[in-house]
């Protein structure tokens, strides 16, 4: 039971309290890049949830089963993880194209972009080095915890990007000063949106 509570806390903590976009600023490029339409942001979210969970699972196994026993963990983890993510994205793209052309049309164009989505690399890194999160404690996530953590991050990402897209659709018809048009007003909106997330800080720590 206690384990379940812990997993739940980890999930909510990663999704809301430490929301990856608005609180920690990871993954801003897709956030501002594909958030002008609700449809595209849903496609991107689906792709991110899928790839992020798989990438974290594989990276965790590779780190524990390969890098640590061989003593390479300290200096090869960055290169390894980015290669895992890049090849995973390629693989997923090929499989989806064969298995479900409809799904491929929906999220196909977002898949290559995910390789340089820092959120995916951050999720993979933090699942094996939670120390980045809170340096004070030396703690290793178990496999299940790592998965819960990455799903939490991906859900938080999707929630914010989809709701932000619907805000931006309304902004297009709003009267905005000339020099604020486009990117600046999106940032101001993001600032106001992230104010809401200040309310979550200190809710609990993980």
């Amino acid at each position, binding site marked *: 039971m206690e384990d379940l509570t812990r997993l739940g806390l980890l999930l909510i903590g990663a999704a809301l309290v430490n929301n990856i976009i*608005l*609180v*920690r*600023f*990871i*993954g*801003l*490029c897709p956030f*501002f890049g594909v958030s002008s339409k609700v449809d595209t942001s849903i496609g991107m979210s689906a792709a991110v949830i899928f790839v992020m969970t798989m990438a974290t699972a594989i990276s965790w196994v590779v780190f524990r089963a390969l890098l640590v026993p061989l003593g390479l963990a*300290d*200096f*090869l*983890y*960055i*290169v390894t993880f*980015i*290669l895992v993510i*890049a090849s995973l994205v390629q693989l997923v793209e090929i499989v989806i194209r064969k298995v479900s052309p409809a799904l491929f049309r929906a999220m196909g164009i977002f898949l290559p972009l995910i*390789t*340089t*989505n*820092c959120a995916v*690399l*951050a999720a993979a*890194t*933090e699942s094996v080095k939670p120390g*980045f999160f809170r*340096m004070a404690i030396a703690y290793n996530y178990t496999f299940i915890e790592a998965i819960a953590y990455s799903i939490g991050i991906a859900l938080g990402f999707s929630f914010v990007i989809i709701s932000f897209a619907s805000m931006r659709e309304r902004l297009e018809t709003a009267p905005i000063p000339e*020099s*604020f048009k486009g*990117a*600046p*007003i999106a*940032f*101001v909106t*993001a*600032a*106001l949106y*992230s*104010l809401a*997330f*200040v309310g979550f800080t200190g809710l609990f720590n993980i």
Partner: protein
Amino acid sequence: MERFLRDLVRGIFEQNALTKSLIGLCSVLAVSTKMENGIMLGIAATFVLVFSEIIISLFRKWIPSQIRIPIFIVVIASFVTVVDLTMQAFSPEMYRTLGIWIPLIVVNCMILGRVEVFASREPVIYSIADALGTGMGYTLVLVIMGFVRELLGTGKLVAFGANLIVLPPAFQAEAPKIFIMFPGAFLTFAFLIVLSNYLLALKEKR
């Protein structure tokens, strides 16, 4: 020589990766709570940028174009590992503050973008100019953001142990803390883009 200077200056102002192309934002918004963090991350990213561009520009004629992206990423990741280990060894405190942002230099789209657009086509000497210019432009934005946020959010400016500016205690007690929290990052950046767009528009008019 003239072209060297032109390539150098272009990256700092008119083609600034952050305010003009809006790439590589994540680290800037996250790290700019203090000015000294910004300076350190700026140096780290410039180092990676310069050496990646040198290596890729040197080998540009031998890199097959079908697999160029994985090659670029591996080169960048190697230099990021160098920074990661060096900073861990010589400045553990700064390493702890910057945390996940050091490994995330790999997926900074600014670096991959410059390597793809510039270094893979141009001679080494101009690639160095481009890398230095882009890196300085990035550092400049980091320093401005850090300056504004630290000064307004805490009422004083401390860099590398020295008090640079101290505002009156009355201001410090009532300092708008929102600037060092995450909404402040979006807000400061929004106004920075507005300012830079405005100045560039003025220059064009003249």
